[in-house]
């Protein structure tokens, strides 16, 4: 297995380099001068020029590219153009709230989704089954910001159950609505995948064998069917977490949460290339690491899967 992990990690490097290359190309063709922006509505050309010098904007692109990677090795991603704060610090300060939101949303999604899907599969074709699958479909189809808005109007303004938006005094209650909004879609996806995965497995040979061996219904279900159904679910959880850790932009805007997503939007709007590069690098790394972890976890759920086979994950 270590061989596999090592090979995978090696394969990651060209991808990361590619991602950063794309960022550099994009930011170089973009209209809008970060230095010009920093002086506000009006500024004198001399100050703007000097700013450009300080930020290294006048150096050739390939040189900026090399310098960036030199920095990566020493864990120095530069300083934000806008605030002069070190990029790593800027991301690190916002990570906790994004991580808390991502974990809360995913936990909510997995518990509700798996339960719903499992029950629907066991009671296939009942009202419960149809009802939950319709709910799941609506969950996938409703725009999350729209749902979020409704939740705020209902729970904050009308019912006053939730004291407000933002981070408040830091207590968990402020995470409830954002987690519900963000977790709705994954919950629906997971419910559907759990249901179809279990249905598929419940009819198969090795289940019948297990039953005939005399195992209890419960052991059969959880031990085998559910476990196998988890494979696509784990994939969804993995990609979902990676996306969320990159910053749930819409939810963060709606609920005024100071997370990584907000950092990204502000950076884009202000042509803060230093932050953009750093953040994209960070998100790409999270993506590949999560992928790797997800792949490594498959054998836990289906012993038939081994490494080295051309498992189409790439």
């Amino acid at each position, binding site marked *: 297995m270590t061989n596999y992990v090592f090979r995978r990690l090696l394969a990651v490097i060209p991808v990361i380099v590619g991602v950063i290359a794309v960022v550099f190309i994009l930011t170089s063709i973009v209209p*809008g*001068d970060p230095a*010009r922006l*920093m002086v506000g509505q009006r500024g004198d050309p001399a100050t703007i020029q000097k700013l450009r010098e300080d930020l290294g904007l006048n150096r050739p692109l390939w040189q900026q590219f090399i310098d960036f990677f030199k920095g990566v090795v020493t864990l120095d991603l530069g300083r934000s153009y*806008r605030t*002069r704060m070190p990029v790593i610090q800027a991301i690190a300060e916002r990570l906790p709230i994004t991580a808390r939101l991502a974990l809360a949303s995913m936990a909510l999604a997995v518990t509700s989704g798996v339960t719903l899907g499992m029950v629907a599969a066991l009671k296939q074709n009942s009202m419960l089954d149809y009802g939950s699958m319709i709910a799941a479909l609506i969950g996938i189809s409703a725009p999350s910001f729209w749902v979020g808005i409704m939740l705020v109007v209902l729970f904050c303004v009308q019912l006053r159950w939730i004291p*407000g938006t933002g981070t408040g005094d830091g207590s968990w209650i402020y995470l409830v609505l954002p987690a519900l909004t963000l977790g709705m879609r994954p919950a629906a996806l997971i419910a559907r995948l759990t249901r179809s995965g279990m249905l598929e497995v419940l009819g198969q040979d090795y289940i019948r064998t297990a039953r005939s061996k005399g195992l209890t219904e419960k052991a059969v279900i959880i031990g085998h069917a559910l476990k196998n159904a988890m494979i696509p679910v784990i994939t969804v959880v993995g990609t979902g977490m990676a996306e969320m850790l990159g910053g749930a932009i819409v939810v963060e*805007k709606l609920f005024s949460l100071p997370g990584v997503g907000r950092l990204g939007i502000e950076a884009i709007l202000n042509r803060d290339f230093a932050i953009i590069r750093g953040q994209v690098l960070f998100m790409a790394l999270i993506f590949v690491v999560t992928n790797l972890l997800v792949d490594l976890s498959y054998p836990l759920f289906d012993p038939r899967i081994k490494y080295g086979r051309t498992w189409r994950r790439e």
Partner: protein
Amino acid sequence: MKNKYGGTYRMAIIQSPLSLDPAHAADTSSSRIVYQLFETLVDVDSDGEVISNLAKEWDISDNGLVYTFKLRQGVKFHSAIGEGIITENGGREVTAKDWVWTFKHIIDPDTNSERAYFLDMIKGYADYREGETEALEGVVAKDEYTLEIVLDHPFAPFITMLAYNTFSVIPREDVEMWGQDFGFNPVGTGPFRFSEWIQDDRVVLTRNEDYWRKDEEGNSLPYLNGMEFRTINDLTMQWTEFGLGNLEAIESVDDPYYHEALEKYPDSFLRKPQMGTYFYGMNVTAKPFDNKKVRQAINYAIDRQGIIDRLRNGRATPAKGVLPPGMFGYNPDLEGYTYDPQKARKLLAEAGYPDGIEITLQYNTDDIHKRIAEAFQQQMKDAGIEVKLRHMDGAALFEAMGKGEATFFRLGWVVDYPDPDNFLHVLLNSANFGPLGNFTLYKNDEFDRLTNEARVESDPEERRKMYQEAEKIVVEEAPWLFVYHYTTEQLLQPYVKDYSLPPFGEHNAIFYSVWLDK
């Protein structure tokens, strides 16, 4: 006797501040917080008059070149910030030497302060900036509490300009120690000292126990225990939080719930005209705006009052000219453009466009701008003008404006200091083409002469006459579509007392005498 002490004042701001270093705080969010942490030589009261702040009194020489300031004694820098971290300066007293160092620091090319060029009339500015001299010739400490500033040429708005937040005194030791990070660890002399800054979330300030100012009875100020500035990007969410009681104040009450706010908070919804103008600028070198009749036609084709009434709940003053009401030099008898689509059509035909014209309006993405732009587009149709709308983020807009590519753009201008120079000279004098402020590339020799002379003229009546004449020229030539003048507002919880709206923009409100009646 009521106990006025205690409480934390929480307010919402729409954008996170960029830097709490006065030398770099060029945006309103940063300025607003800087005003609480730092202090300038003079201040401007709610009527727009210059009053003393850290300078007890001052004297201007007859030729208008030498400004002598007598400094207040007993003003101390903050002794601690954050979680009781002692500052480098230790809480010592401010002297004239600190002011000399401060001005030097601002103009220092290594600091690269965004507003250094405001001071280019100080003697020795150019030499110091280019590295020819070690010290700034025009700023001298005459003795421990006397500061003298010498100018190269008279500049009438100079004293008013000194109220701008960049020109606050800063402690040399701390600035040198923190370097680039001073903006995250600000040390000043203000009524509040810096406590905490959670990025994109909030800035927390606490009471400065050693603040020099006292109230009428001799009690120490401020009354508040602290202040919290929460970043809430969205106006609807700000209103929601205010309604839930999580904020003491918000400053932008958006139109959808404007009437509700008026009903619910009749006494604590403060409004007053602000020194700002909302306009659409036209690049006078680009077709079809190079023809004066076209520009005038557009000014006749807009129903200003209609837009203000229907879309902005009547919360603005239609603009006849450049200068807003309340500003020195404002001309209440100025004749502006009326709403006359027929006349607009006629003018277009005279200009050679009998079938109308097609233009593109560029503006930055914002709900209010969008609403007004859509209404404007509709109204222009009656005059035969086809308007295409393009909204974009501020960065792209400024870039386009700076390059002259945005031929028809929206801009809202609020004064940096309450003097007509800040409007007429900066925005329309031909010396300021491009990013310096004149995005319309407007050039008129008579106008240039008037605004240049008014800068150095010391007689206020003469200045007033010059500015009014200059404004008349601009209105007739119409390089702008004059839309409306801003209104400053602040919605407060009813228990907030003794707050007064500042003269030129909510961001320079002071809070040392505000208290909460709870």
